[in-house]
């Protein structure tokens, strides 16, 4: 019983981590049809922002939840102005340009801070569940994933910005005829996505080492989750994270971490073969 509970909790944590890692990428992809391959490096910047800010004496929570998303959001604004804006509608070119950005960020950051692993310790201590102990931070991550999903849902569903954004996403021309400037909607969306990426990096910083190359560990997972999920931002991310996270965590339990990840990637390929438009290309099509 305890074991089942512990495994269940670990699966939830795995799913939550995938949601956190993918959400920023999903927002940008779902709204703008732009795949930001520098997403992992945006996370890396968020993690560094959090580590530096907490090292400078700020409370870790402020550093993670405020400094990181704001800093990376601002960086996203610059990237949108200088780069993404020139490439709208050229999906493959955007992918390649952001890939270049990702390499340049890894290189630049390595020159700035060196290629050594730094990090922060996880706050919140530990919790006993039956005979098992688990990190309180794992539970916090599950909560954070739920809160982030609810936040994105509420923003899209209830705010004026969400309405405008959804309208622009469905039909940019009509939206523009109705007096919305698609440019500004896109810019805002990209900034929001970047901020989410930065937040994700900061949230994961206590779990893994913070190093300029850390983005590579996440980008593939995020990318595959978002593509497998399909165009609907929330429904896609949640369904794909749920499926892939479960497969990967159970695989890790039953065999090794590597085979867990291999199983997850294999499931993603089979899914894409069966549903070439992603999960939400077939089901939950009208979902957000």
């Amino acid at each position, binding site marked *: 019983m305890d*074991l089942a509970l*512990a*495994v269940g*909790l*670990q699966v939830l*944590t*795995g799913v939550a*981590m995938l949601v956190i890692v993918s959400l920023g990428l999903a927002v940008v992809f779902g709204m703008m049809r732009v795949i930001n391959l520098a997403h992992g490096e945006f996370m890396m910047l968020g993690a560094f922002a959090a580590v530096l800010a907490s090292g400078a004496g700020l409370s870790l929570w402020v550093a993670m939840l405020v400094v990181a998303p704001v800093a990376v959001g601002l960086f996203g604004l610059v990237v949108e102005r200088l780069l993404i804006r020139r490439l709208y509608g050229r999906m493959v070119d955007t992918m390649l340009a952001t890939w270049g950005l990702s390499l340049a960020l890894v290189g630049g950051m*390595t020159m*700035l*801070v*060196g*290629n*050594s*692993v*730094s*990090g922060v*310790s*996880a706050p*919140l*201590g*530990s*919790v*006993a569940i039956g*005979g*098992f*102990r*688990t*990190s*309180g*931070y*794992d539970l916090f991550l599950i909560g954070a994933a739920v809160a982030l999903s609810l936040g994105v849902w509420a923003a899209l569903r209830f705010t004026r910005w969400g309405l405008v954004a959804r309208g622009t996403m469905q039909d940019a021309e009509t939206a523009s005829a109705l007096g919305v400037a698609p440019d500004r909607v896109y810019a805002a969306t990209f900034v929001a996505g970047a901020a989410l990426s930065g937040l994700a990096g900061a949230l994961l910083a*206590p*779990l*893994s*080492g913070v*190093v300029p*190359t*850390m983005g590579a*560990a996440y980008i593939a997972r995020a990318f595959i989750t978002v593509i497998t999920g399909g165009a609907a931002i929330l429904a896609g991310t949640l369904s794909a994270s749920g499926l892939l996270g479960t497969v990967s*965590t159970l695989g*890790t*339990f039953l065999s*090794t*971490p*590597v085979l*867990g990840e291999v199983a997850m990637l294999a499931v993603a390929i089979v899914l894409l073969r069966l549903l070439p438009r992603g999960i939400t290309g077939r089901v939950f099509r009208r979902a957000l």
Partner: protein
Amino acid sequence: MATERRRLLKLAPATALAAPVVMARAALGNDPIKVVGIHDTSGGLDIYGQPMVACLDYAVAELNEAGGLLGRPVQLINYDPQSNIQLYTQFATQAATRDRAAVVHAGITSASREAIRPVLRRYNTLYFYNTQYEGGVCDRNAFCTGSTPAQNVNKLVPHVLSTWGKRLYVVAADYNYGQITSKWITKYAREGGGEVLAVDFFPLDVTDFGAAIKKIQAARPDAVVSALVGGNHVGFYRQWAAAGLKSAIPMASTTLGGGNESLLLTPEEGNGIVCAFSYFQEVDTPANKAFLQRFRAKFGARTPYLGGELAMRTYTGFQLWAEGVRRARTTDRMKVIEALESGVSHDGPAGRTVLDPKTHHATVDVHLAQVADRGFKVLQTFPQQPPSDTASVCDLAANPGSNTQHVVDVRI
């Protein structure tokens, strides 16, 4: 961390500067003796590589200040393979065919050693491997000056069994070092009346150990023995402490402290983890204290923490090679090998190190220590431990053509 990297980059010109001074003193027209070092000073293994390069730089500078070798200055060329195995091969080829180095001191992981060892053998370039490893290399062109399982695991596991209990859980890095070391752990555990409940392997890029930590708890071991390697795996100790298991299940490691991992862990995360190496910076001997004083005088505020043996073995390995050259009166590879096989030893900060002619391994002092507030506290010292594991399978005097790594048959 940033300053540390830049410092190391600045250090290279510093040693280069020392050379012309010596050249002026030595006879004109004497070419410098080229020594190549290949160690990762970036990437996941930099926690080992940076102190190793600092020690090699220091050893060369010290030698040049004392007048060089055979009246010639020593020129050190450092390459950074960035924790990438293929760059190791590339740099080893470069060292042998372009730099024509007299000796190559290189390699941290066993994977890197097995990548460069064949290259240097093919191009007839002498090779020194200066880290603790899983033992068994039998190659006349290579000298392994670090400690091996018969020297360190053999001390660590009995200590764990007698202090904490008989049921062990092993977590290890997923490459030849972890695979073979975990067998040695199993062997010594059996011999001591204990059992290994399970062995889990993790590739070097794994950072999330959540599931593994739950698996360990489900097995309820008396102690965990870790052979995890590199910066990413430091996450294991962090997550272990975050899950509150630090006080519940004690831990020993064959690798922690090889580099500066202990610095990356807060006292709450690290304290009490037990390790065994042939050197700790905290070893309390006059020779070590004098060395550390000189070392600090040279590097000042940027002195790296040496931790366990990897950095000190690099210093010692260089001294052993220099002694071989002095005895051979030449840098010619075969003559130096023969000189090194004539029973060379070095008395230094790590105590006495004696090269074993038959195995090209070293007899060393071994210490058992536990992590204490980002450093180590030495618990016990075992003087002059021979490399008996490699000696049981390798005799280069009888088979000088040997060129393999014997995976010592651990009967499980």
